[in-house]
């Protein structure tokens, strides 16, 4: 029995649903469905967070924020903004390099959109469950900076050029601490696959990687600060810097192109919060072992309960990410802006040594513990899925798609790693 969204990959389900499809088209249709879903998760959080930003900003500044459009709380303010922006004139300055000027917002949006492909929203609900998922997500996110820098250059305005150059300098500064603090939970979990990293955080919330060692605890905060820099959020918003640079890199943009930049920014805020939740805060697990065990066990009994478990996981995940986005908004409206030399000093002179020390500590922590208390974690393992220390957990294997895959056929399977695990486990018993 095929169970889309539960046990059967989407392309297999479509192939079974429409057997008359020629080969390969099932994967294309599945890709279209995934694109629509990712588009929804890209646009709706941005829609919501723009409204949330205005309300939270208002409350912090002792005023109400939007209260008229769509009821007492201004729910539809984002929609009104969108309609206003769509009907604005799409102009480009005469001194601008028109091709690059028109292209830059799309680069930023596409980079963030593609990065969403690798985030699991719940157990198994991911577009591409790559073994290098985290790595590719970060690689693609670095394309967004290219969009900003090109926008800054091609606008033909000195404010834009300053904004673009500041953003380039900022990118060079934050990329290294971002990489190192991202590698710390990877080292603890042993995989770059985001689904596996979250699967290893099942059980009580003490299994979350943020509580794994003091080094990962601090790494979470460093990661959060560095992702603030990567999103150009205050106190790192010099690329935009309304009080200094008119509009920074988006000075000369109007209408829908301007809104693309902001769509990219809010979607990126949601993306990095989602990454922080997946890497450090337990992903879609609620952190209370009996509830998680109940939800995970439900999939065995009936598909409907399995879906319910997945949906609850997704809601938990969205709630956690939303809290982190709220913290980002809160920080923006509380702290003043840094100068570019302060940003570079912070990232290059302070955060790099700090993240290197944290990395060293996170690597040595399980080794020291293994010699002192004979296990790699401070607390006894409590994962309900596997009663094994975090470094030795193997996520349950699921049926693999038989219709997906490019079929180039040169390098087909590498079953050896899975067999390695089987061999090792069998040998241990």
């Amino acid at each position, binding site marked *: 029995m095929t169970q889309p969204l539960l046990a059967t990959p989407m392309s297999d389900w479509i192939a079974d649903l429409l057997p008359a499809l020629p080969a390969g088209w099932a994967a294309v249709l599945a890709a279209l469905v995934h694109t629509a879903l990712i588009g929804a998760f890209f646009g709706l959080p941005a829609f919501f967070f723009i409204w949330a930003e205005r309300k939270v900003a208002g409350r912090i500044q002792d005023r109400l924020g939007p209260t008229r459009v769509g009821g007492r709380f201004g729910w539809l303010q984002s929609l009104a903004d969108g309609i206003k922006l769509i009907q604005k004139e799409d102009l480009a300055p005469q001194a601008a390099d028109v091709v690059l000027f028109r292209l830059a917002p799309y680069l930023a949006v596409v980079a963030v959109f593609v990065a969403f492909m690798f985030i699991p929203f719940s157990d198994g609900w991911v577009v591409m469950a790559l073994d290098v998922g985290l790595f590719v997500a970060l*690689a693609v996110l670095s394309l967004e900076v290219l969009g900003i820098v090109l926008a800054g250059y091609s606008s033909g305005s000195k404010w834009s050029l300053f904004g673009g150059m500041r953003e380039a300098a900022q990118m060079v500064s934050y990329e290294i601490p971002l990489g190192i603090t991202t590698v710390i939970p990877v080292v603890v979990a042993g995989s770059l696959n985001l689904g596996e990293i979250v699967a290893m955080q099942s059980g009580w919330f003490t299994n979350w990687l943020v509580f794994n060692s003091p080094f990962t605890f601090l790494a979470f905060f460093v990661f959060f600060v560095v992702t603030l820099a990567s999103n150009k959020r205050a106190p790192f918003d010099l690329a935009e810097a309304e009080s200094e640079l008119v509009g920074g890199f988006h000075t000369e943009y109007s209408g829908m192109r301007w809104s693309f930049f902001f769509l990219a920014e809010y979607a990126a805020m949601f993306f990095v919060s989602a990454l922080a939740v997946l890497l450090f805060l337990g992903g879609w697990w609620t952190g209370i072992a009996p509830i998680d065990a109940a939800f995970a066990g439900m999939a065995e009994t009936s598909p409907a309960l399995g879906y319910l478990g997945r949906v609850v996981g997704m809601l938990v995940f969205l709630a956690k990410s939303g809290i982190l986005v709220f913290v980002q908004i809160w920080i923006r409206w509380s702290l003043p802006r840094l100068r570019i030399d302060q940003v570079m000093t912070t990232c290059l002179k302070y955060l790099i040594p700090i993240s290197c020390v944290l990395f060293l500590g996170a690597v040595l922590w399980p080794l020291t513990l293994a010699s002192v208390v004979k296990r790699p974690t401070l607390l006894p393992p409590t994962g309900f899925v596997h009663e094994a220390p975090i470094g030795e957990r193997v996520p349950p294997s699921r049926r693999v798609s038989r219709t997906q895959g490019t079929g*180039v056929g040169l390098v087909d399977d590498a079953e050896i790693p899975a*067999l390695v695990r089987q061999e090792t486990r069998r040998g241990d018993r």
Partner: protein
Amino acid sequence: MAVFLFMIFALGACGSALAIVLSQNVVRMAFFLVTALASSAGLFFLLNADFIGAIQLLIYVGGTVVLLVFGVMLTSSAPVLAIKSHPAEVLQAAVIGAAFLALVASTVLAVDWAGNRDKLAGYEAEQFRQRHHGREIPRGFNPEGEGNTVRSLGTALLGLRFDKDLGTSDHLHGELSTGYLLPFEIISVHLLVVLIGAAYLARAKRRPENVER
């Protein structure tokens, strides 16, 4: 389907390369370099080399080209910004390019692709499967089974070739395949030297004091 995707990425790579050559604006050339490298990354993903594709995106597109655009944008003045080539230069470049294309094409056509297919990892997996009597092997380490070159690459860089050694009797007798730990360490030291050298070359130079008589 694979051919269609390959066509898209191949057109992207070749078209961008042509655009780099034919464009006359340096910043647009840098942008077309981005699209050419991203298309190459797409070709890597099509070959199931997911790690290499990700590295290509991260290092070439995300890093090198951003710095290139940075440098080009800040340092290019008007004569460099719009490059107009002399027809003689165009002819020279076309001749050299055609000669190189002929060389590469003849080399590619001379390779025995069918014979090399057996030497790739799929063949080794097939051998492995036969050694274990055709049992159904769960594909890949991650549940959805997509992209699984990272683990072998990572452990190989640590000196452990489990894709070659596991299941053979060599590891019982203590003869393991050589991993890539030594080259990895050599490259690490090399990069450290490069960092130190770059920091030294870019240091702020002290101006000699002017002595007042």
